[in-house]
């Protein structure tokens, strides 16, 4: 099993979700994160005092997939999340020993 993790721009989430369903991914877990990298933050002004926001809001996507599916999923995410502008994000894959579905106790691929 593999865990595909992606950091993407929030407004691309819908497309990424659609793309994942395309390649047969049935579930995923997302969360709000703050990103730091080449894409810079912005500054605000309150009563003349500048306030610089260094982080950029991003969405983190976690998808457990069967080893075989790993690359297809990465491709799908990268395609769907790409805008070509700085800050599009990263996708990475990490190994997973076991997965269990809480409801049934099923393990491995059946747990997805």
């Amino acid at each position: 099993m593999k865990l595909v993790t992606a950091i993407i721009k929030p407004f691309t989430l819908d497309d990424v979700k659609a793309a994942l369903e395309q390649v047969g991914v049935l579930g995923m877990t997302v969360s709000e994160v703050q990103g730091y990298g080449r894409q810079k933050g912005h500054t605000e002004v309150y009563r003349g005092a500048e306030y610089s926001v260094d982080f950029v809001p991003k969405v983190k996507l976690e998808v457990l997939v069967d080893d075989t599916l790993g690359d297809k999923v990465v491709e799908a995410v990268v395609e769907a999340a790409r805008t070509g502008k700085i800050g599009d994000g990263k996708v990475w894959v990490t190994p997973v020993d076991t997965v269990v579905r809480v409801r049934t106790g099923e393990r491995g691929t059946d747990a997805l």
Partner: protein
Amino acid sequence: MSLNAGDTAWVLASAALVMLMTPGLAFFYGGMVRSKSVLNMLMLNFISLAVITVLWALFGFSLSFGNDVGGGLLGNLDWAGLTEGVGKLAGFGTDENPWPGADALPVLAFAMFQLMFAIITPALISGAIADRAKFWSWVVFLVLWGTVVYFPVAHWVFSFDGFIGADASGGWIANDLKALDFAGGTAVHINAGAAALALAIILGKRKGWPKETPRPHNVPFVLLGASLLWFGWYGFNAGSALAASDTAALAFTNTTVATAAAVLGWLITEQLKFGKPTTLGAASGAVAGLVAITPACGYVDIWGALAIGVIAGVVCALAVALKFKLGLDDSLDVVGIHLVGGLIGTILIGFFSNLDVNTASLGDNGLLYGGGFTQLGRQIVAAGAVLVYSFVLTLVIGLLIKATIGFRVSEEAEVIGIDEAEHKETAYDFGGFGGGSSSEAARPATKTSADTLEGSKA
């Protein structure tokens, strides 16, 4: 014998101020519940503005202030529909100024002022059943409770002989018993508090209570609500003088002094018992003080107001703990604050009533002002009568609703949250995923609305 513009201006302004109290109460309560049930809490209060107003126009005002049908128990239907009131005046006559006297008001101005009392009283009850009441069942409750409980009790307490008409006769508590209740300690607070007790019993505990008592989701809203209540309460209390008079100024003063004293009383109690003064405590103390001074504000001097305020603040701060001993989920402490506070204020009049500050009072001096026990007795009778009447009839109404359409939402609805379950809404969306909609696409609304329009055609 004509309309007094100054008094009318004050009563109209007061009516508007009291109207604002119900939304204020909605935020006072709404801030205390969890974020997934705040909308339901706001709605239970807000809807009272709609439901009671319609009842009031149709027959409520008439049942409360129409000529007495006998025994000082209920008014007749002469004013049903309210349109009767257009162009009519109300007031008190004196020898030199026969009815309607020098402070005459348009009947409709008085009707609107009193309406706002009828609206907020049942709204107060809602705090006892937070997070778990079916919305439409609550609406039915408002209709029944307003008709069977509030309108009669308002007649008992607020309908004075010779006010709405030269020889109009009013309610038993005000005119026969001569108990003193300047702005509604009995009719509003004891009444609502007793009803809250009944409903808390009928609806039962929330899932997980008391182990998982949620904390307030928005304390600033609680303070905002308390502040709007305090502001509006000047209309409630000082407006109850029904004139821009010295008595109005006295009521205004006592209201402020007692509320201030109650805030200090509550916070000091918290400091001593729990180690810190809290914002929720300050807001609660203010409301406790406002409740307790309500019946007394026109009948006591400033020392009386100070005493009533401090006592209310300290006692209510302790009283809110009782529900845990009793295992009663009076979720937002309507009993601990409104019933207890209302009793404190109503009964302490028996000690602090001072005729020197209000020569128009129908009552006697209090125990501490040389008046003996007479007035104290009357106050206890009035308080007891309203308490028992309200508690019993609310039990009946509540059980009736529970047995028929049901009063409580499903356990599942409680878990996912009553806002989603009863109102299909979410209170807040602070841009999850940096803007909200991207992660939660609205179904093509065009399509939807089209459907529903179709639906409406069908």
